[in-house]
């Protein structure tokens, strides 16, 4: 199954180019050009990894990260940052981002981080799945609990 990526960056040209490069490497990529647009897409779909630009007009990266983690806690977030905003990226990692990357990023490094984020999400999901199965095996009725 293709890994699902949400790419959030207000620099349209950069986002489109990066998305295309990721698609050629067999990722399923959706683009969003603002924090709000990203949240709208996240409401509708699950993504494995969100690549999030730290510096965006309107809702900034940290604000968007908080909202993403609230909406889809399992989605891993990679912060894209410039040299001037590393502090923000570190703050982002403290509140749940998987890692950060300096812009412009090398493709191999980006792929490595995406795969790492995906692995972490998969492991987390597996643990949740196991707990759910244990619960349902002993009490099928618990499936009706909200």
């Amino acid at each position, binding site marked *: *199954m293709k890994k699902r990526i949400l790419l959030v960056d207000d620099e349209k040209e950069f986002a489109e180019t990066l998305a295309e490069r990721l698609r050629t490497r067999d990722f399923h990529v959706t683009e969003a050009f603002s924090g709000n647009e990203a949240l709208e897409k996240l409401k509708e779909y699950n993504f494995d990894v969100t690549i999030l630009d730290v510096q965006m007009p309107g809702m900034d990266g940290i604000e968007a990260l908080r909202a993403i983690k609230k909406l889809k806690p399992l989605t891993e977030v990679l912060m894209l940052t410039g040299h001037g905003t590393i502090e923000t990226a570190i703050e982002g990692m403290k509140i749940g981002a998987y890692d950060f990357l300096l812009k412009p990023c090398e493709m191999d490094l980006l792929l490595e981080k995406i795969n790492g984020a995906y692995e972490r999400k998969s492991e987390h999901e597996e643990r949740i799945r196991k707990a759910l*199965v244990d619960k*349902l095996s002993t009490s*099928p009725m618990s*499936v*009706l609990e909200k």
Partner: protein
Amino acid sequence: MEHSKNEADKTKKGGLLSNKMLWLIVGAVCFIIIGFIVPTPQSMIEMVKEHGFGKRLIEWNVASDMAEAAWKLKLVLGMIPMAVIYFATEALPIGLVGILMPVFAYFFHLLPKKMIGKTFAGDAPLFLLGVLAMGVTVIDVGLHKRIATWILGWTKGFVMPILVLCISMSVLGSFISAHAMAAFMAPVMAAVYMGAVSANSKGEKIEHDPELAKLLLFSLCFALNVGGVGSPAAGGRNVIMMGFWSDYNVPMSFGKWMMYGLPLTPVLGLAVAFYMLFIFRKVKTKDLTPGLIAIKEETKRMGKMSYAEKVALGMMVLILVLWIFGGDGLGLGGPALLALVIPVIFGVSDWKKILGGISWDAWFMYCGALTLGALLKESGAALWLAQIFLEGLDKIHCAKGLGLWIGMSGFSGLMTNFMSDAGTTALLGPIAIPMGIMSGVPGEPWAIGLATAFATSFAHFLIVGTPNNAIVYGLGVYPDTGKNMISPIDFVKYGFGLFIISLAITWVLGFMIIYNVVGFPEGITETAKAVLMTAAQ
């Protein structure tokens, strides 16, 4: 304060059924009303007098006179609605309901204490212990995944993968924990679905085909359910029935069960496949090949078969061979216990892991069921109930043979949709066996016991009927949206028809053909009747 608020919120959310305290009280009240408030019917007093149950209970110092013996019988009967309520509402964990049986037997002095303890230490409880331990190792080393990918990895197209899925899952479900298979296969089915619909989608956006999602998940779920008829190792419910037969001195061997049950599984699996393909004939995606790559990827990811998998496979085959050809001396418990020993000796699992993985809940429930069976049999309650039911069934000409098996399996099948399958067997088995014996038809009580046990594998139409249903529902989500692929009401919509079909196949192929072809050993009805009437003689 906060805790009680949360509890109250939970109760509110889950509705009346989740109010465990309420059902705990309702069950206890039922027991008190039947046991202590309702007067003992004359028919019970006559029963304990005429059939010698009273005399025996007096000899055992369990009762001082016939009236007290009849009251003890009534107390045992009071435990049945209580257990039904607890099983159906999960007011207590099933293992704890099982423990209640000996607890009541000790505290109300319903049987001599030596007899109560014996129910927990026979061949059958050890058999189940081994079956549970084998499941722990097989799942721990991932052998179930390997087998599933071997079976499905080569398929292509649309109809063939569904046919192979249904037949293989039904046969595998006869020997390997169906819950574990459901837990592994549900996400695999979701991946197969995504691969298939993605290939069928024109743009980047995935065009979903909900009918295909339902076809894949229900095929998996129902095929695993029907696999329960194939062998005693399919689940505790079958072992419970084996235990009841042993109590009547007519034990059935592992191989013999397979002769009655295993031929049914591929046919039932095939019926699941055809029924699902017919119900979901309007699916848009008619090629699963792109999705089946997910299974091939899984196989690739697993690499070569590991040492641990080889040991687990060898252990499974050895135990199976010993169950079938090991003879009476080994019993069922002997080979099963190897599942506790082999993984530790060969270093593929450690002792604590095995102990931690065993479902003690299921084991205690099962042992409690044997205690309840003994209580019903020894007090005369089973015979009293059997006579009442037989009188009722006689009016509709279903009091023996095929009519009785159809009636009993129909009732057992309905009941298992509302409560635990093992609970259904535990409660119906002790009543069904004397019913069969009293009907006097050769082959009883095996025939009616199998009828009762087979039908507990058809919990298709309620989501809470079996953990398989709940697991497939819980894990069957669209990976891209996180929404459930099926809804609880879908089980009623698509499962009820299959429930009827499964029963019909069992009636025709099982009762009319296999029972006649395989036949039953001579004299088992007489042997079991002698045990039932020992006191009278």
